[in-house]
């Protein structure tokens, strides 16, 4: 079935580009390895959890930075959590944005923090978009009757 082959190729190409451009790193590969017949939706579950969690965190961060007196410890705690969750699913660019964010938190630099928040948000939405596209491609392959190829 040609369609399946084409879709699979597109999927592989897209996946490779995500790794190449640094959107995802090795950790995501580890996640994929954990998916098998007993839990076929593991990656989707974890990633959805990540999306929910991140959106909450980003809102909390935005609110915390808009306070009259900014509690940098709280901001730092949120960023730490964001960094942790993004690094555990392999969202490398988001994690890097968090690292920079934490430096500004330490220096209590409000403008830097705001900039970093924007940057982290931007990166998060980019990776969210990419991952959603990835899952869509997966669904298309499965709908066409093929199997999702695994990147070695």
């Amino acid at each position, binding site marked *: 079935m040609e369609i399946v082959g084409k879709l699979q190729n597109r999927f592989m190409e897209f996946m490779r580009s995500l790794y190449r451009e640094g959107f995802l790193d090795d950790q995501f590969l580890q996640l994929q390895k954990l998916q098998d017949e007993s839990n076929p939706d593991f990656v989707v*579950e974890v990633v959805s959890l*990540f999306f929910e969690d991140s959106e909450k965190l980003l809102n909390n961060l935005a609110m915390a930075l808009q306070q009259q007196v900014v509690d940098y410890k709280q901001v730092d705690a949120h960023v730490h959590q964001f960094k*942790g969750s993004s*690094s555990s699913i392999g969202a490398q660019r988001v994690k890097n944005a968090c690292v920079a964010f934490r430096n500004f938190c330490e220096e209590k630099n409000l403008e830097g923090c705001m900039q970093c928040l924007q940057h982290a948000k931007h990166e998060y939405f980019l990776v969210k978009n990419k991952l959603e596209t990835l899952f869509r491609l997966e669904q298309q392959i499965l709908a066409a009757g093929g199997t999702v190829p695994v990147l070695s």
Partner: protein
Amino acid sequence: MGSNVLRQSAQAYLLLVFLFVIVVVSLCAFIIIVFKAAKREMFLCAALIKQVESTNQAERKSITKSLAFAAASHDIRNGFGIITCLINHCLNEASPDSETASNLQLINNETTSLLGILNSVLDASKIEAGKMPLKVEEFDLAELLENIVDLHYHRAIEKGVDLVLDPGDGSLSTFRSVKGDKVKIMQIVSNLVTNAIKFTSEGHISVKVSVSKPSKDNALIVCNRHSPLNCLTRLCTKQKCCCNTLNEFPAIQKNPNCMEFTFEVDDTGVGIPKDKQKHVFENFVQVKETTYGEEGYGLGLGIVQSMVHLMGGEIKIVDKEDGERGTRFQFNIFLTSCVPVSVVEAEEQETNTQNHGLRSYLYHHLGLPFRSSPSRSEGYHVVLFLVEEKRRKVLSRAISKMNIKVSEVGKINEFVQTLDRIKRKLDLSSSSLEKFEVNLNLTSGDTNEVASGTKDTHDQAIPHCKRSNSNGSSNFIIIIIDSQAGPLSELSSPVVNFKKDLQNLSCKVVLLQDHVSSSSQPPLPPFDYVFQKPLHGKRLYEVLRLLSEYRNSSIQHDRTKTDQEIEFQELDSDALPKCQLEEIVINDCNKRSSTSKDFKGKKVLVVDDQPILRMYASKSLQKLGADVDVSENGKDACDKVLKSLKDMSEGYDDSNRTYDFILMDCEMPVMSGYEATRLIRVEEKKHGIHIPIIALTAHTMDDEMKLHIKDAGMDFHLTKPLNVQQLYDLINNIQF
């Protein structure tokens, strides 16, 4: 009486008329004035409206201009992005050791610096208004300087000028890891180096950095800027950059890790006349004495000065010694060192050596512990045969600082003589002591005659030589030869002669070439290695590492070799490396097969407040066959463990086992991992068992952290996110 009234009424009448006329006249005058005023007002209004219009138009023009410029720069940035992408693509295609790859890397670096220039040109107005933010990041300052020198080296050589990176007193290698604005520092140094190249046609340019504790004097200078007179002049001349310095400076000073970095760019060019020295720092001024009428760099020393001020420092032209031509630019900036200063000072006091920089570099980057301070009796010796005098002096000083004997040679005949002398000394040392002394007198007589052209640290070391050689320890000699010193045949014959009569001695010869082509071509004997010029920084440490390798004498199986040396070694022992490769592959396969279901039946508790990490860790362990229980925070984990301990002690069968090990996150709400561990340990004592608790943390593992973990009672630690292989290794180690 009637006539009186008549007369008076006539007068009255006249007066009335007069009054009436006056009223009319004044009314008219009033109306005229009002008219005039109104006309003037209308005229003024019209003029005002016209003015406002033209101001708006001018503003609009400038806004559209900056918008157009921003759009253009956006396109330029895109263009750069495309170029960088394509270069990276090419880099992936090219073989990693070829000249193509290194040239591509240089192009890449140049593109990045061009992009940096573009950004700063856009922000030029921002810089002058003092609103330029410093982008602080961690980077390696020594590496940055190496890159800058490498970038400009070829341009300088084409002009016949040598560009030397002077390690100075070695303090830069200690404090190489810093936090600061990398791009700006690169721009400043690049600008100064380019200027130096422009204005120098012969001789050398040297770049030196020294690090010291910030002095109080600088603080005073900054304070003076705040004096009322300065404030007033500042207001008048609209120089706002100084204000910002004041804001930045106290913040930097408060940091105990803040160090003062003094940069010096020294050249032997045409120099700047004293009266013009102050003016060069004015924006966009150039002293028009360029040799080839090259275009300006675009930044100007004025912006360089503003950037230096932003980093809390000063830039000035320093007087050189009498008789030396050229210019010396000196500027100091304040950066935060990533290595805690107290640690460095303590170590230096302890070991009483200044080799910390080299040691730490070799340890961290090349994975080899260099002998901390090889005393002279170890018998290391370096012969430096370089054409360029300044570079020779600089390198010899740097190497002798590491307690290695250095001989400097500038010409071929001196080279031959030096090699002869070394050989004679070594021959003599093997013979008896008296003979040695007698001959020594002879040779020292010789050396006095010959020493006219060479500087030699040998003579001081002769008694040491005596000591070492009488012990029978061998010497290690590295001869570094510049390929420009002469034709290869002339260079190789004395080396061949030297190597012939060696006993008890190891000698390696390094050739320095301008371009190192693909390393598949080994250097012709007697040269053992080829390195690319310029010899500094990383490459210098590589060459010196050759010395330490003799000591370890595990040349064949040393896995930390660089690619270059592996290439050369391959010719000698082509069978060996392949064997090693095969071994590794087999090992990996073995490891992989044993990870499946190896944790079967083990009860594990995973404690982490983040659901994603919990899910990931538990899934990974389940895949290995373990029975996983999860907890959200320390309190819950504690309760679970305590309950399981109670069940175990109360239950009569073995099925109620407690957990085999616990993965504990450190920072959690309600109760932290440390607290939970402590409580668990207390409870464990009652039952007489010890559950291995592995700490999971996202922080970097420094000593403080390790102590913390040990304190709480945890056994091991891993960093997040969980690496299953590491966990597996750790668990296996516990079992056996």
